[in-house]
């Protein structure tokens, strides 16, 4: 559904010099420096997939989305959305996609939300049944009626985002591109937004590409992850696979009899070089260990030998840890048999 082949985007940036004399010099001489925002990215996302587009600030996420939505033309390479090159056939592409840029409104600034929806209804030729169905959904989940006839420019960020989300889904698009769709939303509304897109996916098979600083958005919506770093794809696969790339594992357990939790922590520190243990607020013991120094067999074997375990589980590494590691640079290849 979404294909990128060697997709590249360069920006020409005028060199500016600091200071008053510098800006005069800039006015006269036009020196440019080329910055490659997206560096030959290739990927293919199947129809009906829900993918998180992940990367640090400046990794080229937004630039890629702007090419996939037809807003910008690539410097080299190409991309296809539902078989269309978006920047060459903008109008046909626009019918198939829904877009949210959390930082930039796409609504009519001077108009109320109902007026904007009436325009969208005509612009996209939305059938009456679809329009009525979707509007009922937005009433229920986003409380869209509460926005009333206030012009968009007078809405709060949270109110505006509700309208942006609804506007991006109103015409039942085949593909949804959401760039930071939940900024300014409280927990209840975030939940509603996730429900909306998951519902569209379940009922219509909508393909989703999402970027978000809120990792719980990603966890709640996406099955797959596409990770870019320095303008290149460093991971494409399921979110689960991505989590298994974490370089740290942990085990949490409860034990009966024997030494108290503090003594257990000391015993683990002495007996398992590289691992660190701590007591959780619930009185359990948590062991964290680097996946390249210790295997889960070594850790569990050690624990089973020494203590009488009453309960034990290995929590999945959380996305934040994995991403922090990626953003710092260097993602280790996926390891096999890492999970206990």
């Amino acid at each position, binding site marked *: 559904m979404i294909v990128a082949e060697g997709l590249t985007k360069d920006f020409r940036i005028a060199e500016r010099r600091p200071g008053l004399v510098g800006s005069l010099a800039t006015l006269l001489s036009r020196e440019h420096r080329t910055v490659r925002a997206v560096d030959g990215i290739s990927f293919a996302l199947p129809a009906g997939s829900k993918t998180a587009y992940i990367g640090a*600030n400046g990794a080229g996420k937004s630039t890629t989305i*702007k090419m996939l939505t*037809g*807003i910008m*033309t690539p410097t080299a390479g190409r991309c296809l959305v539902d078989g269309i090159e978006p920047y060459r056939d*903008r109008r046909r592409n626009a019918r198939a996609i829904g877009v949210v840029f959390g930082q930039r409104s796409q609504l009519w600034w*001077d108009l109320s939300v109902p007026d904007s929806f009436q*325009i969208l209804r005509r*612009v996209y030729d939305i059938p009456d049944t679809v329009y009525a169905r979707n509007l009922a959904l937005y009433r229920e989940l986003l409380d869209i009626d509460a926005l009333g006839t206030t012009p968009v420019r007078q809405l709060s960020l949270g109110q505006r985002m509700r309208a942006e989300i609804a506007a991006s889904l109103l015409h039942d698009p085949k593909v949804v591109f959401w760039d930071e769709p939940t900024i300014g939303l409280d927990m209840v509304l975030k939940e509603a937004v996730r429900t909306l897109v998951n519902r569209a996916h379940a009922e219509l098979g909508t393909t989703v590409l999402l970027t978000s600083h809120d990792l719980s958005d990603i966890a709640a919506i996406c099955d797959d992850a596409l990770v870019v770093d320095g303008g290149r794809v460093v991971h494409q696969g399921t979110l689960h696979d991505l989590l298994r790339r974490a370089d740290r594992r942990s085990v949490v357990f409860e034990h009966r009899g024997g030494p108290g939790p503090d003594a257990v922590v000391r015993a683990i520190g002495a007996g398992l070089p590289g691992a660190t243990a701590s007591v959780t607020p619930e009185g359990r013991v948590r062991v964290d260990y680097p996946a390249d120094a210790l295997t889960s067999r070594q850790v569990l074997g050690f624990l089973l030998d020494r203590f009488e375990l009453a309960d034990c589980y290995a929590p999945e590494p959380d996305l934040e840890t994995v991403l922090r590691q990626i953003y710092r640079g260097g993602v280790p290849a996926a390891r096999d048999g890492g999970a206990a």
Partner: protein
Amino acid sequence: MSATPGGRLRLALFLGGVGLHRLAAYRLDFLLGSGAFLIRVGLQTVAVGVVFRHVPAVAGWSYHQVLFLLGCALLTRGLDHLFTDQLWELSRKLIQRGEFYRYLIRPVDPLFALLSERFFHPDGIGELAVGAFLVVWSGTALGLDPGPLQWALVPLLILAGALIHASVKLFFASLSFWTVTSMPALQTATQLSEFAGYPLDLYHASLRTLLTWVLPFAFTAYAPAVYLLHGDTGLLRWLPAVTGLSLLAALALWRRGLSRYEMTGS
């Protein structure tokens, strides 16, 4: 549906209706704008009157002929104003603030989507009304008796003039794709267009050439007025070519701008 001409017309009318509806929100702004405009045209008329109190003719033009020319200028400018005022926003801030993208994600031609946000701008209605009044009033005073051919040509002349205004505006507004804002350039061009409301014969040859062949505002009022007043078709013969070329140049620059658009920010 909106791909067919009928569908687009319906969409245009709907958006125009929305535009008028929006006026309700800016009623005071509208009243101030119209008031200021009427005062300006009123002063212009008075100033012309004062000049002609002292001299019977200027460069061969009588008082009513000058007002006729001013009326023609207002008609073409008003028709353009009615549809293309959003180009000012393009030159002023749409590129700079990264807002322009919204015209590229709708299944509507981007230029149509852009212009439609300010269809039926009220200032344009005022200019058309005052322009029509000046033309009819001074035309009657001059005892003009247009033949059927001239009557048939009048709507075309106004349309061509409006298209020239629109082309120049689109050209300078499109520069913002390269320069981020192009407000000063567009303002300069608009100020030059003010000269088109007076007889070209008043100006130095260099300004006359500029207004005829570079920024062809002469064709928005002077050429049609000379034809309607004196039957002089010397300049008018060039009108179709000038209109067509202006439009082509503006649309070409607009298209190039679109393809190099860089949405700023994240």
